[in-house]
């Protein structure tokens, strides 16, 4: 397969970037999107040019490092998948591929397609943890948790923090990420100690980091590689209201 690639190149955080056009030829339809970029990078290195910087680590959809905005969509043309798991056969009849970094004030571009997502770490530091007593390992199943709650919590915990929600949102809002993190702890007994404070602290940090507000547009949900649902945002809003009113946690 042959492709024309338009890729955002930017030397470092301070330099202005621009799109550069590259051609790749003879790409196997079974190669992954990142392998295709590897091939391009090797050819750039051979020519003595700087290879294209892009984040990646596990290449199996679990670490959340890869973060490419491909032809107008975070993680490319498929749904519920990270770009590291997308194969080039998905680009049949697509001649030109435009690759951009996530665009958000809170995620400054470090170099080329690599962005600084420490804003997410700051939000987690603000409240995305639980207090646990030290000591011996607690017995498995010592704390009973309703199956539905456990499932819902697990679904929220599936968030890999890649930032596709921010990238997809017209407001660059981080509400889906924060709501997943708030929910997966709020749904479990272990998360109750900080429950009321957690949501306030994490939302305050989210606002402070310069993410946009939520218009309930749903682009985040549509693009989330892990299928995190808008219902978690509603849950976070409930937690937020309950916390503000000093009420007991609403068991909805």
């Amino acid at each position: 397969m042959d492709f024309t690639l338009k890729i955002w190149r930017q030397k470092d955080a301070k330099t202005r970037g621009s799109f550069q056009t590259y051609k790749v030829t003879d790409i196997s339809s079974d190669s992954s999107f990142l392998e295709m970029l590897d091939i391009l990078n090797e050819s750039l290195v051979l020519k003595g040019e700087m290879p294209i910087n892009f984040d990646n680590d596990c290449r199996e959809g679990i670490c959340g490092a890869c973060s490419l905005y491909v032809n107008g969509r975070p993680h490319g043309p498929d749904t519920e998948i990270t770009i590291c798991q997308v194969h080039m056969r998905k680009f049949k009849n697509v001649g030109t591929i435009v690759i951009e970094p996530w665009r958000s004030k809170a995620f400054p571009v470090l170099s080329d397609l690599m962005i600084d997502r420490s804003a997410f770490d700051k939000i987690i530091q603000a409240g995305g943890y639980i207090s646990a007593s030290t000591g011996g390992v607690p017995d498995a199943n010592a704390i009973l948790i309703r199956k539905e709650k456990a499932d819902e919590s697990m679904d929220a915990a599936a968030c890999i923090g890649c930032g596709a929600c921010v990238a997809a949102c017209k407001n660059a809002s981080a509400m889906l990420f924060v709501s997943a993190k708030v929910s997966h702890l709020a749904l479990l007994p272990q998360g109750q100690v900080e429950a009321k404070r957690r949501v306030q602290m994490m939302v305050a940090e989210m606002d402070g980091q310069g993410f946009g507000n939520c218009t309930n547009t749903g682009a985040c949900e549509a693009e989330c590689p892990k299928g995190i649902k808008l219902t978690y945002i509603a849950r976070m809003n409930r937690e937020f209201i309950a916390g503000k009113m000093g009420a007991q946690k609403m068991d909805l």
Partner: protein
Amino acid sequence: MSNSILQYSSITKKIVMALVGLFLLMFLLVHLAVNSFLIFDPSRALFNEGAHFMATNPLIQSMQYFLFGGFILHIILGLILQIQNWLARPVRYKIEGWSHTSPFSKFMIHTGIIIFIFLLIHFINFFFVAKFGEVPVFADTEMEDMGLLVIQVFKIPGYVAFYVVALILLAFHLHHAFQSAFQSLGMNHSKYTPFIKGLSTVLSVVISLGFIAITLVIFFSSRYQA
């Protein structure tokens, strides 16, 4: 006041926005009901009584302050949210996203601003005239003939055209707004949310088409003479 609004968290702003928006929706429904009196009774008597009641009832009159306050709050918050949203993405994408999303949600500020301009014109045409201008007295009553005022304005083609366009945009606003308000308030339920979304569509169409139909009937029918 505006200083403290700026310090509201993003979720607080959305919650206030949603509550105020739902209140404004109530006003639209009442307004539509009163307007429909003109259709049920072309002699204007029913409408004038309705308008007279709205203008003299102390409860309704005190609600007016909440209504104005509500509009101002909704608009200020809408602008603050929107400006923050624009600032959150200083560098735009070369290829804008085309994810499957709620389409009208992307134009809330645009439909909102047109509604606002419409409201201003609407205000000048009716509210100011009723409050400060000369409105003839209806038949042999003490009531002002507000119905006549409405018919006069609804016979002006340019005004009717703008009115129809603005009301279609209002439908776009409400289509997203009603169901979005529930989500903002934390109400999202696998069983009820589809119903709320359906209701959102029905409400936006009924309100918009209702106002438009009344206007067009008055514009085209010879039973209404200015």
